[in-house]
Structures are given as structure tokens and as C-alpha cells.
């Protein structure tokens, strides 16, 4: 093991939501099995840039460190992904780190993903089970349905699909692929399906599902391999049928 081995990171930094972004380079000592987060922790421990100047530590968000919480998403060497599973040994150097561009920057690599959570509220991505008395157990879910629904439940609201989508941007109100897939998930649930129309109405609202342009970047980019474009097409079918039901009437 060479003692002088180093890792170089070029980080797009921003001091606050309104301030101008700038680039700062860091050279840190290499350790075995580093990921981008441990590299960022090294910078935090010793916030000195490549020119030897003392600087502020780089800000980023993290949670689970095992790619299930979605908090540490950032653009690494041009592609959005989680920094916890971005292994330094597998990355081309210098490693370029940027905040995701679809979301407002809070500081440095930390972004505000509120729009995703607002989207989940808009489409009512939950199952209401509260009542004034015990409703007892709900209907059973068929095993084959549970299996594909489980794949949809892996969504961690990480924002990668929104970052990759050409139709999610400041010029459009599109809620993005994640929330669409969550409607499919909750509508597939036997208890959740009792409120399926409400979720479909959310998808048919301004900025809803119809804003999808089928570039299908989302399904290519999703770190959890969620079949997002299948969900989108399935919800296209469901909302198309719902439109006819709403207009012509239906008891089903």
C-alpha cells in the first residue's frame, strides 16, 4: 500500500440558497473501501482544500448509509445516485460532486426535497385506516400482487428519478415519477384500493401524470430498480378509465 495515495474531489459548493455556486477541489488521503460519504467525512474532519487553504466543511445529508433512506443523493461524476453506495474505488478521479439540480440547494450538496413529499400528500400516498371503532382485519392481498407491489414499496423518495426527468424542472409543475408509482402501490393494496379514486384524482390534477413525456430516464436511473415506466403506463390506463367513469358514470 502506497502511503501517498490520495483521492481528489471537485465539489460544487454553494454557501446558501441564494448565493452563487463555486467549485472547490479537495485532496484527501486514500483509505481502503472508501465511499463518497467517508471522503466527505474526511473533509469535514480536516476542512482544508487542495490549495492548502482552510475552508468551511462541505455540507451534505445522510441517514441510513445503506441505500434505503434516500437522503444522500447527489450528482456524482455527472449522474445522480446515493453517495453512500458510491465506492471511491469504482469512481473515475477526480470525483465530481454536485447537488441535484432539480431541487433547491440548501447548502453545498444538501438539497430540499420537499416537493417530493408535497407530491405524496397531493396523491394521498397512504392508506387511511383510522375510524371511530375497530374495523377488524382488512381483506387479504393475493401473493402474486404482493410480490410486484413490494418492488414499488422500495421507493425511498431519493429524488434521482426527478433529477433524471427532462419534464421535472422550474418551467413545469410535473410531480415526477416517484409519486405516480406510489399511487400504483397504494391502489394495489386491498384496503388502499377503497380510496383509489382519490389518488387517481390527485394524479389527474394540474402538474399530474399527464405531464410525463415518456423519456423513460426514470426507470433507467432508479437505484432500486423500480419499474417506474410500467407504473406510469398503468396509471395512464387507470386515469384514462377514471376519466370515462367520471364523465359517463359508473358504479365500479
Amino acid at each position, binding site marked *: 500500500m502506497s502511503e501517498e495515495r490520495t483521492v481528489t474531489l471537485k465539489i460544487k459548493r454553494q454557501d446558501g440558497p441564494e448565493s452563487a455556486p463555486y467549485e472547490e477541489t479537495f485532496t484527501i488521503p486514500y483509505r481502503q473501501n472508501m465511499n463518497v460519504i467517508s471522503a466527505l467525512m474526511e473533509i469535514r474532519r480536516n476542512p482544508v482544500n487542495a490549495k492548502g487553504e482552510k475552508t468551511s466543511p462541505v455540507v451534505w445529508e445522510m441517514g441510513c448509509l445503506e441505500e434505503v433512506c434516500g437522503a444522500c443523493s447527489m450528482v456524482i461524476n*455527472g*449522474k445522480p445516485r446515493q453517495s453512500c453506495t458510491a465506492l471511491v474505488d469504482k469512481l473515475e478521479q477526480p470525483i465530481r460532486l454536485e447537488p441535484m439540480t432539480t431541487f433547491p440547494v440548501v447548502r453545498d450538496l444538501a438539497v430540499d426535497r420537499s416537493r417530493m413529499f408535497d407530491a405524496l400528500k397531493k396523491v394521498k400516498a397512504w392508506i387511511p385506516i383510522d375510524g371511530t371503532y375497530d374495523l377488524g382485519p382488512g381483506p387479504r392481498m393475493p401473493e402474486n400482487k404482493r410480490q410486484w407491489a413490494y418492488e414499488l414499496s422500495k421507493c425511498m423518495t431519493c429524488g434521482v428519478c426527478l433529477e*433524471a426527468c*427532462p*419534464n421535472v*424542472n422550474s*418551467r*413545469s*409543475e410535473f410531480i415526477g415519477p416517484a409519486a405516480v408509482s406510489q399511487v400504483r402501490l397504494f391502489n394495489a393494496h386491498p384496503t388502499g384500493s377503497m380510496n383509489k379514486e382519490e389518488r387517481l*384524482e390527485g394524479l*389527474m*390534477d*394540474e*402538474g*399530474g*401524470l*399527464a*405531464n*410525463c*413525456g*415518456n*423519456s*423513460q*430516464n426514470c426507470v*433507467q*436511473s432508479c437505484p432500486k430498480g423500480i*419499474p417506474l*415506466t*410500467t407504473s*406510469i*403506463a*398503468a*396509471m*395512464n*390506463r*387507470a*386515469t*384514462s*378509465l377514471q*376519466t370515462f367513469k*367520471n364523465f359517463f358514470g359508473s358504479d365500479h
Partner: protein
Amino acid sequence: MAASRDFVSRKLHSLLGVIPLGLYVTQHLTVNYFATRGPEDFNAAAHFMESLPYRYLLEIFVIFLPLLFHAIYGVFIAFQSKNNVSTYGYLRNWMFYLQRISGVIVLIFVTWHVWQTRIQAAMGAEVNYQMMADILSNPGMMIFYIVGVVGTVFHFANGLWSFFVSWGLTVTPKSQRAMTYVTMIIFLALSFVGIRALFAFV
């Protein structure tokens, strides 16, 4: 709660692109193809279309109103997207990008084409084989028409693919892939029909 204007406009935009506009484009190219059988056959076919009953109603409701909505709303959609094929160079993302580029090409081409033929006809010119032969004798115009026709046919074929997804007809990746092949065969076939007809005028 009724569906939002957003939802209805998008769905209508997708539908109108296929019915009637896609069907009209196919019919138009088929009539053009009569030119490969000679000037008389083309003039007879064009005259038949011209002499359809309640022609103005057909033109307004099958062509101009759907075209106007599809074009204006289409430009709005095209400029809403932030294209990113350099980062995400996947096939469908390229198709998404090309759909927007071809849409703008079609808009320019069709505007010019309507001016050069339909509006001239309204001002007294006769639309026949000779008119097109005169236009296409200019090599620049020939190139413009080839680009316009291929752009239009691509926009229709790829738009048909999106139509199948947007209305929820093709849901599985398998069916969507099959439609990619089907629509690209439609693109190639109609391009052949369109280009061969163009060269029949020179």
C-alpha cells in the same frame, strides 16, 4: 372533481396527433403516391379529394382545428422540457428529444406548405401535378420537402408510440418495446411512400 385542464389538454393533444392528424397524414401521403403512376392519375386523385362533399367542414374539423391545437400546445410542451440527452443517452430519451425537434420542424414545414399550396389555391392557383413539379424543380425546395416529410412521418410514428403509453394501452416493457419496432416500421414505410412520391414530381 373533474380532471384538470392540464390533464385534458395533454390527453387531447395525444389523441388529436393520431386521430385525425396521423390518419390525415397517411391519407395525404397515399394520395401523393398517385404521382408515381403519372400526372393524370395524381391529378385525378387530387381532384377527387378536392371535390369531396362539405369539403370546408372536413378541412376545418379534420385538419385545421386539430392541427392548430396540436401545434400550439405542442410548442408549449416542447419548450417546457429541459433536454438532457448528453447525460442520459438512452434510446427513449433520444426519441423524446427527437419528438420535440421534429415537432418544431413539422410546424415550420407545414406552415410553409399550407401557404404554398392551400392558401395559394384559395387565392386562385390550381393545385395539381404541375404546381408540385414547379416547386420541386428547385433543389433547395426538394431538400426542404424531404426533411419536412421525413420529420412529419417520424413525429407521427413516434407520437403513436407515446399515444399507446399515454392512454395506457401498452403497459408492460415488453409491449412498449414491441410498439417501438412497430412504430419504427411505420416510420420507414411512410418515409418510403413520402420520398418516392416527391421524386415522382421531378
